[in-house]
């Protein structure tokens, strides 16, 4: 039941990515926190959203360009992480690694889903134009509603199925993974944050911006190393 509820919330939040409002509530930092709050795991939601946020920052939704749906991937991964919470004491780093990989797969699937949805929207356009050609009006509010419902349903199904499959696989293997293996994944979070910084650097191409960035990074490193404990 929890998976269904959270997946529905996730699918509604995903509307904010492009379909409705676009006020950043679908971004991993916010959406994952909201999902975490809905699943009584606010801190976990924020943590997963924090790890995922920078990964997709440099992909800009310009025109008809095809980008991965990192938001959908992040939301699905936090729902999966909430399901795996009982194993965090012993297998935290392994679960984070699995959740990240799961998120990447879902972001790809989400991107493909959006292409399918956009192609299906052409039929709504065709239907509207045909009715107008026949001299009949057609409620564009209804067209919008149909498109939104279709989007939510599609993304909901995607999240639910993937979380169920991910949970099934993880629960099957987690108890077979020795606790010692958790230390193999100890550098994954650090690597993820570094990846996020490296990818986001592409947004700042001007020399002055990069100089400012580098100087602040150096200053921050020095200040935190010697003056702030």
């Amino acid at each position, binding site marked *: 039941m929890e998976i269904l509820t959270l997946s529905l919330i996730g699918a509604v939040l995903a509307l904010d990515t492009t379909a409705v409002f676009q006020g950043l509530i679908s971004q991993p*930092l916010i959406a994952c926190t909201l999902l975490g709050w809905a699943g009584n795991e606010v801190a976990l939601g924020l943590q997963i959203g924090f790890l995922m*946020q920078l990964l997709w920052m440099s992909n800009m*939704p310009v025109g008809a360009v095809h980008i991965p749906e990192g938001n959908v991937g992040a939301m699905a991964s936090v729902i999966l992480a909430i399901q795996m919470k009982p194993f965090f004491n012993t297998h935290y780093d392994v679960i984070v690694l699995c959740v*990240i990989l799961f998120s990447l797969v879902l972001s*790809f699937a989400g991107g493909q889903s959006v292409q399918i949805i956009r192609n299906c929207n052409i039929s709504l356009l065709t239907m509207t134009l045909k009715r107008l050609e026949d001299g009949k009006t057609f409620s*564009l509010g209804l067209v919008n509603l149909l498109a939104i419902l279709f989007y939510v349903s599609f993304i909901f199904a995607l999240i639910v199925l993937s979380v169920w499959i991910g949970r099934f696989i993880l629960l099957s293997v987690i108890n077979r993974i020795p606790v010692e293996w958790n230390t193999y994944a100890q550098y994954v979070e650090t690597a993820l944050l570094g990846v996020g910084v490296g990818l986001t650097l592409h947004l*700042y191409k001007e020399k002055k911006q990069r100089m400012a960035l580098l100087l602040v990074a150096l200053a*921050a490193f020095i200040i935190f190393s010697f003056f702030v404990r």
Partner: protein
Amino acid sequence: MKEKRQLRTIDFISVFFRTFFIQAVWNFKSLISIGLCFAIIPVAKRLCRTKEEYICFLKRHLCFFNSHPYFASYALGSIAKIEEEYANTPGADVQQIEKFKNALIGPLGAIGDQCFWAAVKPASLLIGFSAIALVPELKQKLLFLVVLLILYNVPHLYIRAVGLWKGYSSGYNIYRHLKIEKFALIKNIYQYSGAVALGLFAGYALNLASNTDYLKPVFFLGSVITAYWLKRRNQAVYLPILIPVMLAVLFGVLVINL
């Protein structure tokens, strides 16, 4: 004498709220035309006297159109003005409206992308992100999520509202407002703020990594460089993430077993 058809404030309020659905029916054939048409319906209902006029109005605005979703408000305001003039001018050329819309596609997309997708959005997220990394308490972190949303949505809502007003005030002369120089201040402020926030986080994360393990700062910097280089080299999306993560696992295995 026919009564002059004039738009009212309530029509613009309705258009404003409809702009939030401008990309709801995004499709590869007409892009955001359905959303644009849906948003401009209050104008059609005010200006069109007959069903035939209404149908022609809708068909006119269901043609191909694209724009940044927030900057589409400039187009909507201008279209409202032009349609109002058209409705009150017998024999006016309706083709001008379509040519005008087509000419707006480029500027609206370019300015919106440069201002919001490249500046305001990443900066807002980075400022919130860095603040969340730095503050210790959960409640403080959640507060900065709210700050992040405010930083982003104040310019977002401002552009939607002002775009409508300026578009309606300017009509065909909206070009005077659609120059990147007019948005340079907000763009530069957000871009430099974002760069500073990213630098702040990078310095903090490197310091944090150094305090826990002597290998973690190496991994952090290595991941930064690897991801940057892979993205730059072949514009890959998943490789810049997968390779450093897999290397982290491989190294974890080597470190433990050696």
